[in-house]
């Protein structure tokens, strides 16, 4: 997947380290010292670079193809994962995947957008852009979780809901609205993590939750910076300015009191430490579910409402 331009010096160093390691076996011990010296330089560069990423750079990191995606998370943190297909109405949408599984001992319903990791899977999953039937499947699974009193985990990673003719014909707006309404009305804990890109209505459709977390370099926005720039600046070239103005980073959303916590990413971003990133997310979800168990359904619904109603008030 695409390299990040601002990582170029780091990637070059990493390349050299890899070369040195290849020749190490038949050379002197000095190479080992050289390698560890270069590695500590890489670490230093990474922590410097990632400590002051601009919002535009965060957008790039959030969309990086090597970040763990939905299926990487389910594989690592869910046992007995049992995907469930279809909205019982029209079709199965591979952009939003969901099902039953066991998370650290508990039964859960887990769902989220999957963007795919190569051309074939990206096309299969429609780049994580959900159609109405995906949101209607989400509603069905949330209602099932409600019926069986099983907590819900949603992992958000989408550029937005699919802007297609067929999606409009089948009521994309209604599907998103009803999905938000369902999130608001379930009487079980619902935990959301924005693991990459939280794209507008397509994201909040499954992220109207009791606890909303974002990974450290994830973004969450009402509109893509490119879209915003082309409307307000009349040119997508100003996407960097729009990214800054929109206040779309995890740090911004936490500051605005729109999310509950930021989940730290490993040094150099989740795309460099995939297992570590998944483990951090799992720890945060486990902590939240432990805190929230046992729950009273009516109280949950009420406090969820209060939480969202309080947002943006002085």
């Amino acid at each position, binding site marked *: 997947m695409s390299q990040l331009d601002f990582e170029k010096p780091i990637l070059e160093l990493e390349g050299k380290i890899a070369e040195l390691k290849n020749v190490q076996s038949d050379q002197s011990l000095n190479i080992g010292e050289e390698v560890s010296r270069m590695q500590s330089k890489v670490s230093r560069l990474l922590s410097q670079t990632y400590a002051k990423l601009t919002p535009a750079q965060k957008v790039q990191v959030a969309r990086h193809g090597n970040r763990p995606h939905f299926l990487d998370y389910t594989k690592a943190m869910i046992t007995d994962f049992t995907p469930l297909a279809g909205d019982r109405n029209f079709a199965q949408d591979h952009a939003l995947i969901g099902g039953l599984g066991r998370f650290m001992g508990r039964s859960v319903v887990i769902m989220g957008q999957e963007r795919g990791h190569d051309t074939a899977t990206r096309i299969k999953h429609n780049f994580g852009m959900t159609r109405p039937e995906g949101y209607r499947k989400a509603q069905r699974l949330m209602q099932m979780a409600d019926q069986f009193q099983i907590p819900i985990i949603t992992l958000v990673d989408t550029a937005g809901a699919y802007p*297609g*003719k067929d999606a*409009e014909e089948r009521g994309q*707006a209604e599907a998103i*609205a009803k999905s938000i309404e369902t999130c*608001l009305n*379930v009487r079980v804990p619902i935990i959301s993590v924005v693991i990459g890109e939280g794209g507008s209505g397509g994201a909040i459709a499954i992220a109207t939750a009791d606890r909303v977390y974002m990974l450290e370099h994830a973004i969450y926005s009402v509109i893509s910076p490119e879209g915003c720039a082309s409307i307000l600046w009349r040119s997508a070239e100003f996407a960097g300015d729009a990214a800054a103005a929109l206040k779309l980073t995890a740090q911004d959303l936490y500051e605005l009191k729109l999310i509950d916590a930021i989940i730290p990413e490993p040094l150099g971003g989740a795309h460099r430490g995939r297992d570590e990133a998944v483990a951090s997310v799992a720890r945060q979800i486990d902590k939240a579910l432990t805190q929230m168990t046992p729950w009273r359904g009516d109280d949950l619904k009420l406090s969820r409402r209060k939480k969202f109603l309080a947002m943006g008030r002085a």
Partner: protein
Amino acid sequence: MNWLSNFIRPRIRSIVGEQKDVPDNLWQKCDACEGMLFHKELKANLNVCYHCGHHMGIHVKQRLEILFDDGRYDKIPLPAVPVDPLKFKDKKRYADRLKESQAKTKENDALMIGRGKIGGQMAVVAAFDFSFMGGSMGTGVGEGLVKAAETAIKDHAALIVVPASGGARMQEGALSLMQMPRTIIAVDMVKEQGLPYIVLLTNPTTGGVSASFAMVGDIHISEPGAMIGFAGRRVIEETVRETLPKEFQTAEYLLDHGMVDMVVKRADLNATIGKILGLLMMRQTSGDPKNTLPDGAGGLSAGGKMVTSPGRSGGTRAEIKTNVKPREPANPPHEKPRRAAG
């Protein structure tokens, strides 16, 4: 969602701007048929073209007037909200854009709330003002909808929301995105009280507005020709690489696709909504001479759906809900809220 560039700017111009180009402002062209329209006649016809029936934008005050009985209502002020929470600036400061719109409209934000009667039933109407930043929904509008819902509950009134909006207000970033769940909470509170929540979809209803409170009504009514959809037309055309049919995302198209209950002409809105509110809020009338089955109706076959006829269905909702007076809470206290778990 390029709603602003390809849709809203021309619409704003057509509503507020270029009328000056017409000599003395007395005549204007219909957007649809290009027929010349004389301003007095156009206003008397509720801004509907009297040549072709095209429904043009209408001032939010006139919108409230035509919805309420005899045009009478009490205006309910919008709650105060923090101004420009993001300190947003593009080519212009959001704070300045807000001030300009406030100066132009003499209102605080893109929503106007009124309380009055429709068809004799108590109703709260919250109507979007498209001339205020494209009717975009930020914290001010969201908070206004919460206020409208609370007022409806307090007064045992129906809630009618009239979107005319390109979607979320980008200048409030994720805070405007949060208005989607917030406004759904507001209308759900009304629905849980057994009070009617009616959406009157007007031109345009798109983006984050269409994908929130606007699509969870008990009843969806639309004005003819209104554009209603989630994504903007140009974005869709760029995505699917085909030209969309002219009627795509119109009210009539949504009717065909099952997303709205009916398309109603502007002149008939008060009567139609009044009739619906009567049926929903005054579920049993007495002393009505027509309050009997018409001749021959008793001969309906066994497959008939007369669930309200006596003796046909013991313990139905119809039986529970007799003698509910219009001004009382619509749900008897022992009845569970209609919308239980989601």
